[in-house]
């Protein structure tokens, strides 16, 4: 199993009502599969999903990518800093 931490920021944190969650994923889980798992656990995330960005180990990540072991994952909306 692959233990990962998923962080939530901004709108995603508000929707998830928490700032992170620890998950155990099967090996070779993709980002797309992770999203499904998260929505199953936290249905409120679904509404934001079309505009959700995902990072893995602090780099932007995309649906078909595999999640490496012990990854630090984050979900957040398009950035609005500055």
């Amino acid at each position: 199993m692959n233990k990962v931490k998923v962080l939530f920021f901004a709108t995603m944190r508000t929707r998830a009502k928490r700032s992170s969650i620890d998950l155990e994923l099967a090996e070779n889980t993709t980002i797309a599969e992770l999203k499904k798992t998260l929505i199953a656990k936290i249905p409120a995330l679904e509404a934001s999903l079309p505009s959700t960005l995902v990072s893995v180990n602090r780099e932007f990540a995309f649906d078909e990518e595999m999640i490496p072991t012990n990854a630090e994952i984050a979900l957040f909306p398009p950035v609005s800093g500055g």
Partner: protein
Amino acid sequence: MKPSNFPTIISITEDEIDLNALVEKITLTSTGAAAIFTGMVRGKTKRTGHAQGIAYAPHETTYLEYEAYIPMAEKKMRQVADEIREKWDVVEGIAIVQRIGKLYPRTPTVLIACTASHRDTGVFEAARYGIDRLKEIVPIWKKEFMPDGEEWVEGEYIPKREE
């Protein structure tokens, strides 16, 4: 990414942004010009429009609360600095600072400064590029508190692969 002995300051901080100190730190003996951008919290937004992909109507802002995914934001700010150096190899020093926390109107929230030997070297364009990129790829968000409610501000830029 070419190595550089020129100073690069990257900072996410709750403290006031000190322009004098930051510019001093990126001024070398060969420096003759600094182009600096600072952004402030607007208390009154007059135009209806779309900036950084964000649609808004005229409104008042009581304060903003900034949040960052700090380790990734620092990494991405460093990437913005690297991109600037790739595009403008005349740039000597770079400072990129984002202030976070609860920030009231008129308060500077962000600074991008680039120095070069001369002003006609692209140093203005480099600073402009820096703030544009920060607003695309650096994971920082603001929540806007208005007299009649609060709202997360969301951008619209979707980073591409290898970005």
